[in-house]
């Protein structure tokens, strides 16, 4: 069975700046695999260990990003694929899904695509549903447990929603997004890291994927990008002892009508 895991490159923390041309400046912040995508990768590797076949780590990114794809290989992915093109620099979620969908179609024999529930920078959770619709495959989002996965057959899983757990099933191929509770991602061993250090994953461009400029044009135009308004200046509660401070604090909370 062939599982594809989509990995997004995100800044380790969100202390980004905004450039005058409104692009995001994440310079000086380490780039990591989106945390939720690590869970997606671990899940793909575990099912591959059970059923055999391939697990391909797929990412849209720049050539430096190969380092993280190697990390995915060291964890246990069997293949890696980088989608790189200057035209991929300013994708929105749906156009990014269009790029991934084109690559997955080109791979041809994919049974299951796994992604994280959302990225920690954009945070929309729209990627997996968009990808599923573009591929014409069913989608299982917010999965916290895969109960059954039969190659060439069906998948049965639990969707962990706000207050209920749904047990759902559909036939493969399908797209699934996973939450953090699903597993505990492994750390790649040094030996494995060394073994993949020189692997050069294939790189596919927009032309390889048959994508035109129109396919990559976001539907919306960014017109403003600003930092959040500053919070009103706070107040420190003083007092000779903890009991006095606590009383003053509760006075304030009542004055602010928040309790």
């Amino acid at each position: 069975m062939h599982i594809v895991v989509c990995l997004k490159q995100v800044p380790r923390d969100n202390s980004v700046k905004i450039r005058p041309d409104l692009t995001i400046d994440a310079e000086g912040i380490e780039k990591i695999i989106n945390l939720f995508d690590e869970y997606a990768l671990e899940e793909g590797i575990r099912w591959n260990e059970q059923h055999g076949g391939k697990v391909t780590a797929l990412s849209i990114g720049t050539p430096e990003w190969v380092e993280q794809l190697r990390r995915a290989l060291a964890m246990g992915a069997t293949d890696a694929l980088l989608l790189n093109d200057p035209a991929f620099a300013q994708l929105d979620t749906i156009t990014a899904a269009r790029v991934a969908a084109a690559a997955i179609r080109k791979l041809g024999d994919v049974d299951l695509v796994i992604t994280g529930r959302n990225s920690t920078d954009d945070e929309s959770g729209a990627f997996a549903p968009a990808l599923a619709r573009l591929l014409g495959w069913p989608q299982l989002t917010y999965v916290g447990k895969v109960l059954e996965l039969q190659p060439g057959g069906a998948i049965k899983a639990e969707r962990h929603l706000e207050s209920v757990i749904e047990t759902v099933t559909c036939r493969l191929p399908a797209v699934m997004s996973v939450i953090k509770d699903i597993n505990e991602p492994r750390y790649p061993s040094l030996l494995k890291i060394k073994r993949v250090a020189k692997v050069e994953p294939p790189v596919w461009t927009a032309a390889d994927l048959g994508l035109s400029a129109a396919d990559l044009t976001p539907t919306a135009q960014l017109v403003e990008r600003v930092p959040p308004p500053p919070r009103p200046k706070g107040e420190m509660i003083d007092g000779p002892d903890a009991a006095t401070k606590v009383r003053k604090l509760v006075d304030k909370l009542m004055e602010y009508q928040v309790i």
Partner: protein
Amino acid sequence: MSNVLVILEAIGNDLAAISRELLGKGRQLADALGGKLAALAIGPTTAVAAQAGNFGADQVYTVQAPALANYTTDGYVAAAKAAVEVCQPALILAGTGFQMRDFGAALATDLQAGLIVDATDIQVVEGAIQATRPSHGGNVINTYRFAAGKPVVALVRKQSFPEATAQPERSAPVTELAIADLHPRVEVQAIAPKVGAVNLTDAAIIVTGGRGLGNKDNYYRLIPPLAEALGGAYGASRAIVDDGWVPYEHQVGQTGKTVSPKLYIAAGVSGAIQHLAGMRTSRAIVAINKDPEAPIFRIATLGLVGDVNEVLPLLTEEIKRRLNR
């Protein structure tokens, strides 16, 4: 294409608060666009369909079918497309719960529509729809303008707009839309309540503990009782979720939940940027930390320097006394 379509959600026999917000904002936007405000009730939500008229809708559509008894992407997208067909909306409004995220992105993709998730503001500017959403843990506020000619699907973050007020004398026609045979590819086999589910996102008051609580026993001795005295929920930093003190359900932050309660108390939490990402828009933030230099104090409305072991029991007692609990 100047109408606005609201996807209704129900809680029991009432419209969900988010639907009342969307009807209020939708009314204003439909007027600005010179169109009508329509609402769509899918499957079981049909029970509350008529209420949408009281809250400002001009027209209500319902779609019913046995296959719509439970949420499925295919079922809900097909139902929404039936309404889009007759209503031709410029803007489709829905909430941001997990099902609506699953649905909204799928619908926008199928319609080749614009999509904005977690919208906190929507305006009509020179006839075009313009919408704002935070990204990067609230550190960046983005405003997008959508080209006319294609609809926009906007999933709106809770409490972004005032709820519409009921006008009992107002009503709207309710029209049932026919839908072709539905065969959702995903089958829902069971729905079970989540054990120990915590609806942090809906809590008005949250008390969060961090590594400063020292250990798991101390966390449970000090944090939930204070939350209970306040009638709130309890949260946790990632540090102590990763250490297994508290289930992930309680985690607030970049890789946990984003919350915006009226009162957020952070005790023994340093205030790492990933934590702030999940709670910085809370109305009042109280920080309790023994280190006066802790970053959490920089965003606190009220800061108290002290040891959680001493402060929290006093605070719980004082709250109980003042609120007569």
